[in-house]
């Protein structure tokens, strides 16, 4: 299913008052930030989107895709699900290698065509995960010993190449150990729509708009300015610089040179 647009029709806040907008439209390839204090309704909004709610949740919001309601199996069947979720916790419990795990997931998603194609896909996922994390993942690494950064990188690459859900929800992903902006760029390159709950400025200031939550309602919509994007780029450069120095330290090298001049990684957008 090709997704061009998501529309959120307003619902009600915790006091039962109507949200102050009629509808919000989001187009393919856009990143939407969700910000606000604890208890302001961020998770509930993600939940409404994940459910593609039709007024049955407590906020009464309605969510349409390409101006239509969505059939139930597209919400739940893992082989067809259109919504992917990147949660805070990315622990694994299966005692197996990265390669084997990815193969099982490829099967589950109904994406196995031939042994050859699956093998290629696995390699592609691991390669792109390695562009996101500093500590290299090999296909024979056991899942259970992956570090936090490696797990996050692997799951982002998995979302990009295996899950292929066109809509992705991200709940407070940590940036420790990964090039976080590159991670999202990988997902956006595939034309996905991303909703992310985050207060990490590298991410929040690099969105297309931010939904500001208050008392359970979307109380404001901020369109990201060019200046904010520039700040995000700069912060992302610092984050990646930190990661590189960290790698030098890990490899037992001496860090001799202090780099002060930033060359923005994402280029100007």
């Amino acid at each position: 299913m090709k997704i061009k647009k998501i529309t959120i029709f307003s619902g009600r806040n915790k006091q039962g008052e109507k949200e102050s907008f009629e509808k919000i439209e989001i187009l393919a390839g856009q990143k939407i930030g969700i910000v606000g204090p604890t208890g302001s309704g961020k998770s509930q909004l993600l939940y409404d989107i994940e459910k593609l709610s039709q007024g049955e949740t407590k906020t009464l919001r309605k969510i349409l895709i390409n101006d239509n309601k969505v059939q139930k199996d597209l919400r739940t069947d893992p082989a067809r699900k259109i919504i992917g979720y990147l949660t805070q916790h990315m622990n694994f419990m299966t005692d197996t290698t990265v390669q084997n795990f990815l193969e099982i997931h490829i099967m589950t998603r109904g994406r196995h065509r031939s042994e050859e194609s699956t093998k290629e896909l696995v390699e592609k996922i691991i390669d792109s995960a390695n562009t996101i994390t500093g500590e290299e993942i090999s296909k024979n690494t056991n899942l259970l010993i992956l570090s936090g950064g490696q797990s996050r990188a692997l799951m982002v690459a998995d979302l990009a190449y295996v899950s292929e859900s066109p809509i992705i929800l991200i709940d407070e992903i940590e940036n420790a150990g990964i090039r976080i902006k590159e991670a999202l760029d990988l997902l956006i390159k595939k034309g996905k729509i991303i909703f992310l709950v985050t207060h990490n400025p590298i991410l929040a200031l690099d969105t297309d708009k931010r939904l500001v939550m208050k008392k359970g309602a979307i109380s404001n919509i901020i369109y990201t300015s060019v200046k904010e994007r520039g700040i995000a780029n700069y912060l992302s450069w610092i984050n990646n610089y930190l990661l590189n120095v960290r790698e030098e330290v890990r490899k037992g090298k001496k860090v001799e040179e202090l780099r002060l001049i930033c060359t923005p990684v994402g280029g100007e957008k």
Partner: protein
Amino acid sequence: MKMVIFGGTPGSGKTSVIKFVMQELKDLSIHYAKFDVLTTEDHLLIKDKFEISTEKKISGEICPDHYAALEIPKIVEKHKNKDLIIIETAGLCLRCSPYINEGLAINILNILAGKPSSYGPLLTHADLVAITKGDLISQAEREIFRSEVLKVARNASIIEANGLTGEGAIDIAEAIKESPEIKGKLTLKHSMPTAVCGYCYGNKTIDSEKTLKRYSLGKELKARIPNLNCGKCGFKSCNEFIRAVLDKKVNEDTCPYLEGKKG
């Protein structure tokens, strides 16, 4: 009246999920019963939160699921004016799981607790499987787990639920509202294993001869009592009565129905 049975291993999130589901069912009059082997406080938690009638049912010496099957008709009779009876099982016996055909059988399945293929009827005979604790692992593993559940519980609908956030509660409440009213005789979804050896009659020594002897004595006594589980002897079930007799804790004529009483 509707009836829903929540089965699931200890700590899988049954009570947590039930609380969110009940939030969605506030317009119904509900009775809640929790079965457990030794002790529980779940009935107090639910009572505190919703101010409805709740009870605990402690099975002691018998399989908590066999016990539940024995008690369910009594609970139904006593609360027949209610809209809904919610039963939370002890969840210790994967084999027995007292699901009934007439009501709704929900398995609360902890995603961290092992392979779906190793569960018995607790999972395979559920009408609805609510997978909990998915928040603790990656989406990829959640998807894999879900497809493994579908392999063994082919006809069940599957919901991703969460006992901390209430995710999935609306769908479970929906399924309860759509479930049929129970009427007439209730039937188990599958037969339960029988008491088949001396250990079932309370034998503790690991010794085949003693076990066999205990079994024949137990069987002989069982043949003479009417197996009503009526409780007149002071025990919850006939089996417990038989154990006590074999342990010489009570006299067999404590059961008023005993035929061919020894003089």
